[in-house]
């Protein structure tokens, strides 16, 4: 994942029917700062010509995003997401079977040519977080139980709001030297809050293929979204 905002939204196709669309900036894949929109905002844009390649069939080139002034609450957003692309099992996420890493890691990937889309939702049953240390930074991974009780191991969490929430949590615990304490809190008090919600839902996405030609599954959106009030509980 590069710097910037990878925006993906829903287009209404009719009563209770939605599909994912990814408005693309004129240059590159991600929108740059200043980016005035937030999750749930309703925007409009005019499609422009551009090349689209599998599995990122949701891509729509455009010149800019315009706010409509409307914004969905989280419950409304999740409701709409459950009426867009949703899989009952892991194979259904991208229309092909994810493959295990041949290098020994636990993350899974799909071949770009075999995948029919690059984003899909799924019901979340359980989650366990893992924070890995990097110099002056951290990586957040999640182990998930989704769909028909299937597991996805070591999925990178790229959900911006969850990552920012975790950064604030780490800061409160004393910074990067205290990642293990932050991880404990994330997996206990905060995870309990998350799992007690009736709106447990994930959107799994595929990045652009890397140098190895593989698209590694990532956790694009995790619902419920973290609440600032959860930090006060700690």
């Amino acid at each position, binding site marked *: 994942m590069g710097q910037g905002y990878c925006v993906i939204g829903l287009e209404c196709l009719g009563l209770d029917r939605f599909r994912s669309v990814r408005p693309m900036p004129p240059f590159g894949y991600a929108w740059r700062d200043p980016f005035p929109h937030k999750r749930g905002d309703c925007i409009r844009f005019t499609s422009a010509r551009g090349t689209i390649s599998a599995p990122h069939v949701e891509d729509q080139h455009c010149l800019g995003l315009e706010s409509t002034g409307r914004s969905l609450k989280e419950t409304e957003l999740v409701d709409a997401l459950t009426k867009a692309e949703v899989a009952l099992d892991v194979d259904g996420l991208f229309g092909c079977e994810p493959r295990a890493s041949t290098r*020994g890691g636990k993350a899974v990937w799909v071949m770009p040519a075999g995948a029919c889309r690059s984003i899909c939702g799924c019901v979340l049953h359980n989650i366990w977080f893992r924070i*890995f240390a990097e110099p002056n930074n951290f990586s957040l991974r999640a182990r998930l139980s989704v769909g028909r009780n299937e597991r996805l191991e070591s999925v990178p969490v790229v959900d911006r709001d969850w990552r920012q929430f975790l950064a604030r949590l780490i800061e409160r615990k004393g910074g990067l*030297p205290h990642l293990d304490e932050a991880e404990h809190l994330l997996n206990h008090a905060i995870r309990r809050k998350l799992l007690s919600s009736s709106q447990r839902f994930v959107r799994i996405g595929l990045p652009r293929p890397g140098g190895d030609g593989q698209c590694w599954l990532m956790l694009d959106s995790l619902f419920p979204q973290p609440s600032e009030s959860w930090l006060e509980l700690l």
Partner: protein
Amino acid sequence: MAYRWDETKALELVRASVSRELPTNTPIPGDEEDLVKAGLIDSMGWVAILSALEDTARLTNFAAVWPEDRPQSIRALVETLRGAGRRDAEETEEHGESPSPESADAAVAFTGWGFALGSLRVSAEEVDRECGLATHTLRDAAGIESVCRAAGTEDELTLAGSAAEAALNMAGVAPDAVDFVVATSATFLAFPSLSASLHSRLLLPESCGAIDVGGACVGLVHALAIAKGLLHGSQRGVSLVVASEVHSRRLCSSSVPGAFRGLFGDGACAFVLTRRESGSANSFMALGDFVWGCSGSLALSLRLSLADTGGFDVKFRGEQLAAAAVSAIDRILSRLENLSGRTRSEVACFALHEPNPRIIGILAERAGISLSRIPFISRTCGNLGSATCGVSLCTALTRVLTNPGSERPLIFVAAVGPGLLWGGTYLQPASSTVRQESRRENTEGDSADGAAGRS
């Protein structure tokens, strides 16, 4: 079990982990070279290396901190690995919570428990109507006031998952610390089995085993015995034992006699068992030994088989079954008295399989047990199959924990099931358990009770 890594072995392990993440045909870089800055690996590769080292070295929270000035190099990984191994080994030695499998003083402690009941509560009168029984039959003849039923969103897996989460939470155990899960269910008839499904649902680690045991209503006692045996040779000394039953879907056929299916409810229970030093500072209730038996001559009193519809075909002789259950449980209690060296009058709580409250009432009278020492789960929940004595045991453990009236609280567990199988065990504070086991070892062979066995 933590391991102290010497330089050569650590270097070998790190190089192997790094080489797997390098692009094909890339030679292993120098030990001091920063793998990320040199563009040899990215963030995905770095995390995969840390995960692989953690798994192979069996470390917890490996590389939780990576200071800004520390390079992401093979040398730095080796030093971090050696430091983490040293720290884990020292922590294990300090806490002494997971003695080596060979330790003679190791006991099996109940460190967490929980249960989940079907969220629908159906009155006895409503069940009478559903089962075509005369009004008040269930209440008057069986002593059942209501039964718990699984809602549409609930099944064996969701109930077991809720119970297990509660038990793990109480024990303060993370999924990664569990060595194996032992599950039992008579109503979960699918593959992957309940234990494997639960393994996925709870996100237990790949190194955690998943074992299913049978026995129907005795299934929980079987599961506890299996767990106790396996714990002595396990790596982290933590096991999860689960029983879960959703009778309302298996017994819903009209071909099942109403007087039988009306008795049952849906629920699950779970226990975290931990290997502990018996002399550790914290007191805990420890699992004792087991008694077993099987009376084939009474097998015809209850027979269940899978019907073409997926439900059960049931043949049962109610009166014969009730009499057999009372006799069998009474016999288990006598054998547990011999095994534990303590009388039933000393028992704080009896966690029994309850075919129905009326049968347990008859048993209590015959066995000379005060009704107040039996949780009577079936009165409001119905017969929960293998989970009945488990939910009862959860209640008993909580009672003992919250009412520390006795210095040596004692719990007897007893269950009977189709076959006619029976099994039982007891729980008491660890020091008492170990002392009793030592005493019995000294007198082994003296007992006239040949059926009393050890797990």
